[in-house]
């Protein structure tokens, strides 16, 4: 079987997963891109590893135990002391953990109108996991960042095929030096699985997940952001509101960084049927990147009136909040409850989606369709 036949047979999917079999929607079987069904997300505030969505830009690298055990992270560029660190070296730094809601920039892209190319995520390219590692700031401080170092450029062990650009990303030095940005070697208290970045992943809390480089092998401190496709063309949003479908000059685009305020319903499922007389629990999650969720309001009358939902007790600085709302329909018929989150920066979810050429940042007020029968 040649490479093409292998890919087409679906076997490539299983091999790249290395026996890992999450029950997720296959958006792409190579590179691996998997979306979590909303009903699966609904089950837990902390997403189990097998339910965490997966995004890969290039074929999953082969990382066996020997490769993982001899892993090194190189830190060079605008630093006083370039470093080459093994995992054991890294583990000597102070250990920290952060529970982080990671969301793909293009989550909800399928709803862009007009359509845009790219992975056609519905609502489930988002999950919430605990990441454990060391603060990148501590490591960069050891290396000594020069005043000329304004960005860090991250590269992983994954490699492109042919002329496809390498997946290289960068973040500004301020975010890199934030105490909560971490070099993670554990996910939900176990070693990071291969498809989530084994054995070392950068986690940039509150930012779109493409900044959280998997299979991290190098960090170069540089005067400028990375000059490649995945910084200069992809993952950029217009600096002004554009008409849907309009072309945007690249000079008027900036990198998409921190996530905006957003909420989604995870229960009930769309088109669920209920008997009149029973209360229906509307549930979901709300998140806001680096900000906190302050409230989630629900409307069951098509946006005429809004009532605050209950926010769940589970909290973390960069994690989503559970919301619940008990709805007792006054009569039989069709309902379309709406959810609208507000964050600590005063941001509120928009009523209408703000279109952009790559379908990023879909955070319009969410809705779920339900039918109530007498």
């Amino acid at each position, binding site marked *: 079987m040649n*490479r*093409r*036949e*292998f*890919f*087409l*047979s*679906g076997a*490539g*999917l299983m091999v790249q997963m290395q026996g890992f079999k999450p*029950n997720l*929607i*296959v*958006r*792409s*079987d*190579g*590179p691996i*891109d998997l*979306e979590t*069904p*909303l*009903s699966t997300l609904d089950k837990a505030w902390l997403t189990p590893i097998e339910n965490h969505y997966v995004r890969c830009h290039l*074929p999953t690298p082969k990382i066996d135990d020997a490769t993982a055990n001899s892993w090194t992270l190189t830190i060079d560029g605008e630093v006083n002391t370039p470093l080459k660190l093994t995992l054991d070296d890294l583990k000597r730094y102070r250990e920290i953990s952060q529970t982080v809601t990671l969301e793909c920039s293009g989550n909800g892209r*399928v*709803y862009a109108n*007009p*359509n*845009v*190319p790219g*992975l*056609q995520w*519905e*609502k*489930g390219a988002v999950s919430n996991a605990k990441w454990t590692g060391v603060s990148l700031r501590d490591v960069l401080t050891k290396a000594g960042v020069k005043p000329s170092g304004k960005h860090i450029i991250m590269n992983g062990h994954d490699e*492109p*095929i*042919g*002329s*496809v*650009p390498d997946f290289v990303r960068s973040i500004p030095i301020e975010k890199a030096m934030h105490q909560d940005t971490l070099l993670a070697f554990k996910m939900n208290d176990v070693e990071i699985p291969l498809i989530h970045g084994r054995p070392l992943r950068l986690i940039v809390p509150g930012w779109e997940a493409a900044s959280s480089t998997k299979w991290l092998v190098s960090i170069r401190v540089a005067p400028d952001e990375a000059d490649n496709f995945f910084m200069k063309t992809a993952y950029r949003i217009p600096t002004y509101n554009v008409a849907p479908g309009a072309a945007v000059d690249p000079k008027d685009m900036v990198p998409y960084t921190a996530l905006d305020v957003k909420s989604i319903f995870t229960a009930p*499922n*769309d*088109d669920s049927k209920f008997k009149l007389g029973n209360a229906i629990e509307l549930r979901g999650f709300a998140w806001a990147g680096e900000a906190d969720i302050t409230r989630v309001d629900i409307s069951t009358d098509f946006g005429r009136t809004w009532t605050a939902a209950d926010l769940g007790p589970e909290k973390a600085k960069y994690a989503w909040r559970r919301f619940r709302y008990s709805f007792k329909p006054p009569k039989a018929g069709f309902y379309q409850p709406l959810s609208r989150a507000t964050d600590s920066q005063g941001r509120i979810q928009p009523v209408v989606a703000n279109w952009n050429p790559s379908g990023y940042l879909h955070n319009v007020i969410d809705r779920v369709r339900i039918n109530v029968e007498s």
Partner: protein
Amino acid sequence: MLNRKFLLFGGIFLAAGLVFGQTPQAPSNAEMAKKLETTCTGYCHGPSLIAQQRLDRNGWTREIDKMIRWGAGVAPADKDLLINYLARTFSVTRPLPNSFKAVPAGKGSDVFQTYCLACHDDRLVTARRLDKAGWTRQVDDMIKLGAFVPSARKDELIDYLTTNWGR
């Protein structure tokens, strides 16, 4: 009654695509599906990345141009044929997917979700009960009418349909 309407509508929709979607001189859908598999998939990505898109001719032209820049081996004579096929098969007019509607788990469920439900509601399938020969005919008919199913996964799809909606 609802299911019959769905089936009738689906048949008319697909037949219209067959009539208006290609000229007598154009390669058949099956020939173009094979060309797509051999030209555009298997090196850098699988077919599902293509099958989920909903783009017009301009959109597919931009994507093909980008892929050529990135090293895809598209022969000049094939470029327009592929763009026409892509715009016809993975068109902007396809309905939004409804993959959050639960489908039975099992081998082949991703083929069903990616290649069947990208174009039509699951009721076109779940309303029927066919044996393996019947589902084979249905899948073949859909491919003739323009549906794209990776050739290497066709049998898997037929088995999945037979297992879940067999007779």
